């Protein structure tokens, strides 16, 4: 006998959703709840016992943990430099939108740093920054700027910028390609109409281009926020967060707090804070987007 339509409907709904929903609950929702739970304890990660210590971890994080603040300041630096770089990225995207001989190859080149293996890229720059006979120092010598030579990955004041340069090298390309997508979505008639009205290059940029890519720019700003907050592998691979904790980021430092210093409770409090920061920034972003479109 053929099963009735209603029962086979229920069967397909259940059987198709069971696995993905179970995976989601078990590997994302449950750990998130656990994270909050651990953050109120002094657990070390392996002892059978854990003691509830209320908000002590958060108190320590806020008032008595300069390394964590140093780390989050470093995240902030990634955000600031990436954001300052947006005009250059936008200029590149505008130029890339022209079709000249070779523009296909230039597009290919722009995105390449983002696609090729990021860990190999990090080590590649470790080689470039190498203090002994390293390419960067040799280049500076060759052009008479020896005075600029420094410990790119060992000088406390320089190391973060060295790492951020790698981050720019890796991620600028994807921003440029997203901006290019935004530019290509602007209908050509708008430019033609502006030209008929006698608009110059800058006016077209101001009144046609920038409004046309607002959505994409918002995506990129959000990528900058979450990318900077989740920055992890470049410092992990190139400096291990060092010297000391000078180039650590919040995510890297929270992992080290958990697995190197065995302070699971504190690390969980850090992860919760990171989570809250990201959710906060993304809802702020949503709010800004919504606000603008209502006014428009």
């Amino acid at each position, binding site marked *: 006998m053929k099963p009735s339509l209603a029962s086979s*409907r*229920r069967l*397909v*709904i259940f059987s*198709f*959703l069971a696995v*993905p*929903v179970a*995976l*989601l609950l*078990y*590997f*994302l*929702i*449950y750990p*998130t709840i*656990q*994270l909050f739970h*651990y953050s109120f304890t002094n657990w070390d990660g392996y002892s059978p016992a854990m003691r509830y210590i209320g908000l002590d971890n958060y108190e320590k994080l806020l008032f008595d943990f300069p390394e964590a603040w140093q780390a989050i300041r470093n995240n902030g630096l990634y955000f600031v430099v990436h954001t300052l770089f947006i005009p250059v990225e936008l200029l590149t995207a505008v*130029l890339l939108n*022209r079709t*000249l001989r070779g523009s*296909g*190859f*230039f597009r*290919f*080149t*722009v*995105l390449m*740093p983002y*696609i090729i*293996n*990021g*860990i*190999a*890229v990090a080590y*590649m720059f470790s*080689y470039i920054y190498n203090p002994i*006979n390293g*390419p960067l120092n*040799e*280049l500076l010598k*060759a052009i008479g700027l020896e005075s600029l030579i420094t410990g790119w990955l060992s000088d406390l004041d320089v190391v973060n910028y060295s790492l951020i340069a790698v981050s720019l*090298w890796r991620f600028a390309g994807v921003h440029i*390609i997203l901006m290019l*997508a*935004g530019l290509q979505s602007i209908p050509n008639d708008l430019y033609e109409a502006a030209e008929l009205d006698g608009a110059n290059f800058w006016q077209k940029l101001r009144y046609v281009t920038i409004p046309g890519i607002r959505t*994409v720019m918002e*995506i990129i700003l959000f990528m900058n926020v*979450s990318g900077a907050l*989740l920055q*992890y592998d470049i410092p992990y*691979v190139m400096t291990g967060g060092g010297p000391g904790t000078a180039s650590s980021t919040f*995510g890297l430092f929270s*992992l080290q707090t*958990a697995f190197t210093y065995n302070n699971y409770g504190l690390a969980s409090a850090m*992860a919760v804070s990171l*989570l809250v920061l990201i*959710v906060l920034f*993304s809802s702020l972003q949503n709010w800004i987007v919504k606000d603008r479109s209502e006014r428009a």
Partner: protein
Amino acid sequence: MSQLQAGQAHPIRPPAAPARSTAQAKRRLADGGYYLFFGVMCVLVFVPILLVLFGSFKDAEELAATSPFSMPSNWFNWDNYVTAFTEGNMLLGLRNTAILVFGSLIGNALLGTMTAYVLNRFDFKLRKAVLLLFMLAMIIPSYTTEIARFQLIHGLNLYNTLSGPLLIYIGTDIMQIYIYTQFLQKISTQLDESAMLDGASYARVFRSIIFPLLLPATATLGILKSVTIMNDIYVQTLYMPKRELATLPTALMAFVGERSSDLSALCAGIMLVLLPSALFYLVFQRLIFKGLMDGAVKG
């Protein structure tokens, strides 16, 4: 380097109408600026890679004695590559990376399309709740929960197995469900309804209509997911520290740890890890561009 050219068409510029020479000069200047700009960009992108390539063909002595900008004396000195390939466990790394990528692609494509099918084509009591769950999950950055998830993986005895990261890659990718659902919204229900009238079962409709119709989305999602997995060390170092489970990036990390003073071998190791990803880019560039650009404008 013409074989590196992106697949887009390069229309030849239309012959310019006879213009006054100042306009022509102006345009030539603009074109010159264009090529200067992108020339600098190409230098910035390719020179670091070339320097590592040069270094990878020099032995330790030559590397120390010559300028890093000088070409290797012998382009056929493969010793460093042999060292990096064998001692760096690169073949094993390639194998494990391939397993993670293909396993996750299959799992994601199946579960993603199934979920989107049910959520988009059926109306049922818990639909709103499930949708809410997925929306909630989407705002949680998966990486922030790793500290707690580590305990789960341990508890399931999946520490130091390929299944742990596979389950995480498959189970926590909410973005693709969102994209599949959006894609499915644009596909008319007429096809599946008429198939149902012809007596096809739901499973049959899914297998012969929905899944094939979603294949273009699957292709772009799969390519972008592969890039993510190939670049990820967070999950891979945390859950698979065992040597036999090294992936390409973690194998490179171990190799660097062991031979940190042998720069020329390291250069070869870096090239060995860069190469597969560069090949991947060459082969799939169209899909990569399409995936990124569509997502930016429509998403």
